């Protein structure tokens, strides 16, 4: 850059006395300037590339996945049932992650998702048994999740407690509660189930149809929530407020945003969605409840929230990836792999994926005020 301005000065100084010699010098200087700027550009290129990739990383991932599916289809492998299962496995993760994205965007890390999902699963199925209706169970599961998250919010927002240990407490409370509530109906098959409602035209599309459009209604709800929550978070005033509260609560407060209310709302919404994810687990997917059935999926949600870079679109792609990983277990089981080694796969892949993402993008861009309680002093 220095050389360029230098050349510029030269050009100005020889305005009046343009001789051939000067022109030659100037040409040499321009060439020099060009080459240095090229070097500068090449030096900066990895950074530019990473910036671009950070934006397009999900698009790239999606492209790779589509390519893989088409490759398999062309090779004669039936990917339909696998893709269908992938979406079902992805749904509880998607619900949880969408909610956790909102909570973390507002600056509160709720580590208790595993507990909330467990309670949601237990309350949901017991509620469905008692009310004789699967929808009532889903609603009750959501409510239990919102309640637990509200309890956490009191500790994390108003009492300004440390969020990590408080979240661990919620994790244990939720798992304990699920055991207390669900034990009455453990292992009992739920007679009220949702039925698959394929969407008329769309479900006939070869690959996408089986992936996205041949499911129970709750899966569609999760899919609809993705663009809705993305739009609200990034294109509306409410979303702007949420993000500001998570980045700089003092500034948001002085701009007239109620920091406490936003945090309470986001954490409770996150809890409700996690509860919904749990209820989906027991009511829509398994059809029964067992102690410890959530088995770490709530923790995968926490990991996925980081992996999504706090973006609902990323949440969809990430949960499809992890749902696919889980579905892959069933495919590989048939090939004679030991079941418990395969069972490690979702957890190990999450760990490796997170680590490689961190190697790739040093700064993930977590909300700046995450983990920091806000006080008006």
């Amino acid at each position, binding site marked *: 850059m220095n050389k360029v301005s230098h050349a510029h000065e030269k050009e100005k100084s020889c305005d009046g006395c343009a001789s051939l010699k000067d022109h030659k010098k100037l040409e040499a200087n321009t060439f020099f300037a060009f080459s240095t700027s090229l070097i500068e550009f090449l030096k900066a290129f990895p950074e530019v590339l990473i910036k671009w990739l950070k934006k397009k990383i999900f698009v790239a991932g999606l492209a790779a996945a589509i390519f893989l599916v088409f490759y398999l289809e062309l090779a004669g492998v039936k990917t339909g049932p696998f893709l269908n299962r992938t979406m079902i496995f992805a749904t509880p993760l998607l619900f949880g992650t969408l909610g956790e994205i909102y909570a973390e965007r507002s600056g509160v890390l709720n*580590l208790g998702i595993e*507990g909330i999902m467990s309670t949601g699963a237990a309350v949901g199925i017991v509620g469905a048994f008692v009310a004789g209706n699967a929808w009532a169970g889903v609603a009750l599961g959501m409510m239990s999740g919102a309640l637990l998250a509200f*309890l*956490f919010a*009191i*500790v994390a927002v108003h*009492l*300004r*407690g*440390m969020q*990590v*240990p*408080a979240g*661990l*407490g*919620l*994790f*244990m*409370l*939720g*798992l*304990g*509660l*699920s*055991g*207390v509530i669900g*034990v009455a109906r453990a292992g009992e098959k739920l007679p009220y189930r949702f039925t698959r409602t394929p969407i008329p035209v769309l479900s006939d599309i070869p690959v996408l149809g089986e992936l996205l459009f041949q499911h129970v209604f709750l899966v569609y709800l999760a899919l609809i929530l993705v663009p809705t929550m993305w739009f609200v978070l990034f294109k509306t005033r409410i979303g702007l407020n949420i993000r500001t509260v998570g980045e700089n609560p003092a500034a948001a407060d002085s701009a007239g945003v109620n920091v406490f209310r936003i945090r309470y709302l986001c954490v409770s919404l996150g809890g409700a969605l996690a509860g919904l994810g749990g209820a989906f687990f027991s009511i829509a997917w398994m059809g029964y409840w067992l*102690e*410890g059935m959530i*088995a*770490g999926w709530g*923790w995968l949600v*926490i*990991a996925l929230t*980081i992996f999504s870079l706090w973006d609902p679109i990323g949440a969809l792609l990430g949960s499809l990836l992890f749902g696919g990983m889980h579905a892959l277990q069933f495919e590989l089981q048939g090939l004679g792999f*030991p*079941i*418990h*080694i395969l*069972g*490690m796969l979702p*957890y*190990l892949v*999450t*760990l490796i994926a*997170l*680590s490689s993402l*961190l*190697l790739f993008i*040093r700064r993930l861009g977590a909300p700046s005020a995450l983990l920091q309680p806000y006080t008006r002093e």
Partner: protein
Amino acid sequence: MLGLKIEKRVTPSLWLELGISALSIVIALLVGSLLLWTQGFDPLHIYLTLFSGVFGSFSALAETLTKTIPLLLIGEGLALAFKARAWNIGAPGQMIIGAITGAGVALFLPFDLPAPAHVALMFMAGFAAGAGFAAICAFLNNRIGLDMVIGTLLLNYVALKLLLYLLYGPWRAPGIGFPYTAPLPASLCLPTLAGTRIHYPTLIIGIAVVLIFVLLTRTKLGYEVRVFGENPAAASYAGISSFKIIMSVMIISGGLAGLAGVGEVAGIHHVLKQGVDGAGLAYVSSYGYTAVIVAWLGRRSALGSALAAFFIAGILTGGHGVQLIEGVPYAMVTAILGLILISLIGGAILSQYKIIMERNPR
């Protein structure tokens, strides 16, 4: 006129800290009684049974001490790690890895050793394995910024699956209906106090750890850990290496969890089996998770955690008793433990402020 004023408190007194711990236990028990009541139990009766079941008889007390051993070892390590804000939630996994390694050394050592040396080797290998397992996360956390909670937690499930793989696969003893390994040779089983399950060699290690940790607070490392935990930025300014702190507290806490795992295998179960970490069906009742509460209830101090370990072990023992006698689901204990932790964190605000009564407020 009397007015109330709220002021910041710089250093909370010991009595206040103890009071907060006691208060949070009371709150948790109150909410727990609400839970019990909704499930159709008489809370007062249940609590009385619980506490008489812990301290009422010699055998109950011995059982409490037995359960104290792993909680003490892990809780001490976690207290140290939490002091440095290294959120090691991977104690269940580290304990399982320690147990696997200990059992492996006991069963499959290719050469002969005299029994005491063999037992010592089991403990050392268990420590190394637990420490190594924890060090993976510490390294990733320090070098690339992987979230410690997520890293340690995901590895818990990996460790559990590894245990299941070994039990259902290569290590399964033939001819037994259960997925167990072959029993440990009798010479390698830890001796117990007469008539109880208290495997005192491990208890002695635990007490030694407490003493070392009490002394540790007076050393340079203890000081650095404290500074680092309170203000990482100031610590790095003072030339304290974050890598050194994170690695050492994680290695120590992971290693202690590994020791606890070996102790459970060699002292209690004498085989490697599922639930060797104290977990029943619900994975959350593992000692590794319960020890998180031990560390917080003990205000992250060495002596406090030791007392808390004994207290929580009492609740666990009483919980088993109440489950057997009254049919209260054991998950209730887990819920109450979670409530204790939540109210501890929420109550911490009390130690930061004091309410002053003053005359004639301005």
